[in-house]
């Protein structure tokens, strides 16, 4: 009996192996010639400077994958070449909406990646949801995009806007308050990205017992290119610190106008110097950045990735691929690479390319995937919450040191520096 049992078990194992081998073969035979990734980018218009680095970096990742035979797709048990179909929406939300539809209904892409930034992401979110298509969202951080009843989105490379300023308001209410920051001016561009952050900061600073009060609170259009009068108006309210939240162009104009105005504040925080440091340094100069507080991204942190390249490896690859093409390497280029990594890991883990399986695979990566920007961690509504956005300050040489939180700090905050 024992011998028969052994034979029986052996036959059963053999049958399972044969069956799975045949199934694998069948899966491989049914594999598509390519995996289509649909994407939008802004080749021109006001969002081109944040969109093109993401696009270039994603394109670079796809080329690298294809150079190695493609990405491994678990659903077919083999490597399959990737095809990036990326349309230029020219920074126009209406065009972005049309092209999102085109990617889904005409090109029938396997994976859908929206354009960068909250303004252009906003139009793709409802369209993807309507078509039950999972949206890979590189950097659209507006809090309104994420809700528990929408399983068709995940934010990949940026923390959600409500998370970005957490360390900022903590810093204001603790270390900065101890250093004498009592009155704060809040100036922000009225878009989902910076508007949400402004709301979060406002709510935190208006909590009972807050040692800091807001003495100036105004929104400006994202198209604002001149801040001279606003700076004068802010100075009239006598704040200790000014928080200016805008896109790249806003921050450049603000910091240049601040230099020209002759106005001095104890502290100035702007958003993009730590995000697109190269661009800001070229436009404002090291002198214009001296003393400015900003977020510290992977560019200023030394994080060891478990998947993909380090910041310096990516910088070298990006600059080798694109040279002096006018697209600067910065945070958005990193975001494009992270988008590629998440797509790659999703394909490697998804049981099929159906949208529910893609959703499961992406959310299955949460807390496990460590890239050059930190831990990829999703809230159950798809918002990214794993990455860190410490607060840093530029010194006179243009170097950004972390000043908050204390466990990451590499420098002490200095007030009155700008």
């Amino acid at each position, binding site marked *: 009996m024992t011998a028969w049992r052994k034979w029986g078990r052996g036959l059963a194992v053999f049958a399972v192996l044969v069956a799975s081998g045949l199934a694998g073969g069948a899966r491989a035979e049914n594999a598509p010639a390519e995996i289509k990734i649909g994407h939008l980018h802004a080749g021109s218009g006001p969002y081109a400077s944040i969109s093109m680095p993401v696009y270039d970096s994603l394109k670079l990742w796809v080329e690298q994958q294809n150079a190695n035979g493609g990405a491994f797709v678990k659903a077919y048990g083999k490597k399959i070449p990737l095809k990036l179909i990326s349309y230029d929406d020219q920074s126009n939300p209406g065009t972005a909406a049309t092209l999102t539809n085109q990617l889904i209904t005409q090109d029938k892409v396997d994976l859908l990646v929206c354009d960068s930034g909250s303004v252009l992401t906003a139009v793709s979110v409802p369209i993807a949801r309507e078509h039950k298509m999972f949206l890979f969202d590189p950097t659209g951080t507006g809090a309104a995009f994420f809700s528990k009843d929408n399983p068709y989105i995940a934010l990949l490379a940026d923390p959600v806007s409500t998370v970005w300023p957490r360390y900022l308001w903590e810093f204001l209410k603790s270390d900065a308050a101890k250093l004498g920051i009592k009155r704060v001016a809040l100036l922000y561009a009225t878009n989902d990205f910076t508007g949400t952050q402004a709301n979060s900061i406002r709510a935190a600073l208006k909590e009972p017992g807050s040692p800091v009060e807001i003495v100036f609170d105004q929104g400006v259009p994202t198209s604002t290119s*001149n801040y001279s009068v606003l700076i004068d108006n802010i100075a009239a309210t006598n704040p200790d610190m000014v928080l200016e939240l805008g896109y790249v162009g806003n921050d450049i104009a603000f910091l240049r106008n601040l230099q020209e105005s002759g106005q001095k504040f104890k502290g100035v925080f702007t958003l993009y110097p730590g995000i697109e440091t190269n661009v800001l340094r070229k436009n404002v100069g090291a002198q214009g950045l001296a003393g400015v507080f900003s977020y510290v991204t992977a560019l200023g942190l030394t994080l060891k990735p478990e998947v993909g390249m380090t910041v310096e490896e990516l910088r070298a690859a990006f600059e080798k691929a694109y040279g002096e093409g006018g697209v600067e390497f910065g945070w958005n280029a990193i975001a494009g690479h992270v988008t590629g990594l998440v797509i790659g890991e999703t394909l490697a883990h998804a049981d099929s390319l159906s949208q529910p399986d893609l959703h499961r695979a992406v959310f299955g990566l949460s807390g496990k995937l460590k890239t050059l920007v930190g831990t990829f961690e999703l809230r159950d509504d798809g918002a990214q919450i794993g990455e860190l956005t410490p607060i840093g300050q530029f010194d006179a040489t243009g170097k950004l040191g972390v000043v908050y939180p204390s466990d990451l700090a590499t420098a002490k905050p200095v007030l009155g520096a700008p």
Partner: protein
Amino acid sequence: MLLHALLGGVIYGCYFTLIGLGLNLVFGVMRIVNLAHGDVLMLGAFAAFFLFHLAGLSPFIAAPLVMVGFFLLGLPFYYLVVPRLALAKDAEMLSLILFFGVQQIIEALAAIAFGSSERSIPGRVLGIGPFHFLGQNLSRAWVIGAAIAAGAVIALYLYLYHTRSGLLTRAVMASREEALASGIAIHRISARAFAIGLALAGLAGVFAPFMLGSVTPAMGVSVNLSAFAVIIVGSLGNPLGTVAGGLIYGIGLLLMQTYFSAWADLLPNLLLIGVLLVRPTGLLGRRVRLA
């Protein structure tokens, strides 16, 4: 706050006068709508950027170089495009379409050539520190931009009203058909006006990095919107009416920024709608435009 907004508005408005000046001259003489005006300005800005960063030339030296260069480019471009355009039944409408295409081409080529990142020239090039006037600290770049704009307006005035070529230009502006019947070489005069229009746009572009914070290939569209608001408020087809339009635009913008900052980008549209409803000829216009 009010005094600063008013003073700043006057000075900032002078720069918008310069932005609108060339556009209005071209429309006044040729009755064509140059939708690529903002992109010509953008090219002037990039020319100044590269002249500074590659050759070390300050904007004060770049300005005449850019003006001469754009003037010389404007002459053949005029003969290539405008005479054929003028033969059309509805040259105004056709010019809108044609120059929209030109605008798209310039922007696309500029994006390919220069990339999409923001570029600028250090503010210290125009001097360090603010300019003090009536107890207010005003941007030095604004004051210099205003002075350049004032110089351009005066130069254009002298050209139009104190030179024979200017007299002929005004004759063409008054009536192209009558000027032709009088034996005026309208294409030569128009080509000159077109080239001057481009040169003025180029001049405005040289100072754009200082006035607008930074420049990108995409800036042309928003510049166009401001320029159209300025010339329609002042008077379409009357280059000197642009001064009134520019000042109203500048003061209006800074008052909006002071009291209704979140709505400031509505200003060009509000001005356009308001003027077209109340006084379609513009504040200094005499004739009603039927087209």
